[in-house]
């Protein structure tokens, strides 16, 4: 094992040791995550909210969805081209195609113009594409709107969190105490009171003050250029309507062939996560009216302008050159793989990267920052149980991708010493246990 390998190994070990300290951030997150993921894991097989289970729903659509994703990868360039064309011609969106993350960041800053404040939904893609880093570097004030993210921001929480409930580990007591410290207000230590506070005080701002807003997309339909967004809070509804300019930043893998595929993807998000996806938006144009003499005028009550920044970066290359992580292009970000992951349950946000928790985000870190980053994120905590692959509704073989990462780490002398020993004994003595 190389010096770097030892250093990374120790770093992971140190974080794990903190799990013994009940007050450590890892421990606090881990406790709630264990409950959430185990509960979700069970509920997949229960007739919980509907007549069929989430598993049955997935099974019903899995073959079709997998084929749809494979077809997309096979014809990725044509789908992207078709989508951009219809978006420009029919939907009158302003569409950019960025070849790299850096290009996307530059375009985004240009679109932001003189605005010093940006309101955003979770937009995981923006994080992945590095938009958040650039905003911070340029001292742009980032206003989170998803309550979980608002709370993470309030409590200065900078660790990887669960994307679906980013602030779920904070207690009502902690939140209320911090609100008193920051805003000087006394609130009852109840979730309802906290929600009521933000509804009363933050909602008017979202309705009146937003100039530029940022979202990602759950899916984008290539045949009609619709942007599909699923949400439960209503923050995305406000951000996409009560704004001057709505900017969507997405990797091109979010494109699906048609609007019905997009609907299945959106519904799958709901079913997998058992969230009441209260609202699904299909955005096919900026707000407009033709009520005066049939003349189309943009910017009635909703967004005046919709801007899409599609990002390629590693994606076309992965598809064309058949890279080992090509399967990631199928991913619809439903988070199934997080709930059922053995390592994720045991290690919470120790098994994570700056892009979020779980194996999929470790692979993202690998793509952007290389193998050392993946080892540091806890690559070798993966047991290879293959639950991620078994559960994936679109047939991503994440387990195999993780194995490939481990192989690369081993080649670069980054594999934990005891594993290396097994390997040497197997090849030399033909038995690892003698």
């Amino acid at each position: 094992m190389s010096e770097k390998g030892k250093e990374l190994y120790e770093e992971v070990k140190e974080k794990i040791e903190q799990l013994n300290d009940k007050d450590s951030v890892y421990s606090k997150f881990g406790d709630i995550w264990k409950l959430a993921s185990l509960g979700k894991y069970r509920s997949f097989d229960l007739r919980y909210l509907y007549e069929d289970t989430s598993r049955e729903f997935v099974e019903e659509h899995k073959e079709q969805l997998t084929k749809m994703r494979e077809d997309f990868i096979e014809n990725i360039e044509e789908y992207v081209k078709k989508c951009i064309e219809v978006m420009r011609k029919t939907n009158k969106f302003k569409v950019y195609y960025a070849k790299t993350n850096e290009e996307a960041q530059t375009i985004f800053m240009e679109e932001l113009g003189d605005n010093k404040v940006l309101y955003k939904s979770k937009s995981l893609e923006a994080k992945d594409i590095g938009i958040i880093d650039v905003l911070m570097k340029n001292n742009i004030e980032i206003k989170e709107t998803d309550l979980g993210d608002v709370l993470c921001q309030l409590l200065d929480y900078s660790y990887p969190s669960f994307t679906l409930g980013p602030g779920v580990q904070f207690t009502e007591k902690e939140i209320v105490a911090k609100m008193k410290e920051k805003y000087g207000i006394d609130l009852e230590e109840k979730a309802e009171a906290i929600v009521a506070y933000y509804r009363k005080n933050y909602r008017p701002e979202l309705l009146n003050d937003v100039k530029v807003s940022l979202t990602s997309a759950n899916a984008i339909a290539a045949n009609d250029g619709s942007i599909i967004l699923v949400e439960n809070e209503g923050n995305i509804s406000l951000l996409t309507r009560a704004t001057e300019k709505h900017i969507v930043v997405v990797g091109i893998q979010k494109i699906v062939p048609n609007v019905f595929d997009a609907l299945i993807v959106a519904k799958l998000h709901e079913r997998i996560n058992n969230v009441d996806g209260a609202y699904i938006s299909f955005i096919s144009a900026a707000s407009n009216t033709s009520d005066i003499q049939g003349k189309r005028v943009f910017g009635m009550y909703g967004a005046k302008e919709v801007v899409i920044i599609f990002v390629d970066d590693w994606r076309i290359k992965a598809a064309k050159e058949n890279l080992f992580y090509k399967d990631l292009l199928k991913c619809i970000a439903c988070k199934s793989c997080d709930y059922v992951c053995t390592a994720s349950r045991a290690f919470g946000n120790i098994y994570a990267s700056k892009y979020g928790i779980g194996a999929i985000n470790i692979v993202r870190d690998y793509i952007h920052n290389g193998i050392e980053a993946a080892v540091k994120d806890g690559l070798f905590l993966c047991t290879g149980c293959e639950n991620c692959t078994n559960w994936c509704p679109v047939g991503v073989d994440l387990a195999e991708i993780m194995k490939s990462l481990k192989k690369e780490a081993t080649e670069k002398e980054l594999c934990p010493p005891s594993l290396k020993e097994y390997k040497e004994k197997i090849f030399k003595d033909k038995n690892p246990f003698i």
Partner: protein
Amino acid sequence: MRKLIYLGCLSSSKYKETCENGIKIIKFLDDEYEILDKVPCCGALSYHISSDEELKNHVEFVNNWFKTNDVSKIVTICAGCYNYLTRYYKQYLGSDFNIEVKHLLQLIATPENLKKLNLKHSGKKITVNYHDACHLRNAVPPIIEEPREIINSIENIELFEMENTKINSICCGAGGGVYATFKENSDYNAKTIFNQMRKGKALLTACPFCYNALQRIREENNIQKPVIKFEDFIIKVMNQEDPLI
């Protein structure tokens, strides 16, 4: 043409009695199966940390060993070997690997063999749990129903399904060599498995790696319910002994 009993390196180094029991069952069902000396490890533990070239060399070595010893059929008592031999040997060797590989559970779970074994527990009715090892449920073909058929065929033994079973089972946290490096993984996950046992009186497993991890957690946490390897359980039932001791 020989029929080989493939014990697997973990069981043959660490669980000699289980190996004896496995051999007894296999020979009882088909006495043409035999034990050979110096059987090489299948290489499962090196899969995720070796290059394709290293793996190919190793599986070629093992396959040549099979050929030299005229092996045409294999029954293994190891979940890891079954998974690896069925999935990856074909992948690396193609048609050059043409050995029929079975796991002990598959051998037992045929109607003829269940009839031949005629398993009966003479004492009070016992409820047991079965833990689906990843190696067995992920294999091609998967082994999921066989252990259930076997347990349900035994008079006075009842299977209690845990909340996470079959393809949905919880990994013991020891796979992929994680047991040797980050045991905290099974500290949590194996405990979760025990928590799901409820009215089951013993936890059966057909994977020596899972056994290793589950047994450690059991000892460290003073869990009273035993973890029993499938072969040991079957032999005790065959011998009319208390299978829980």
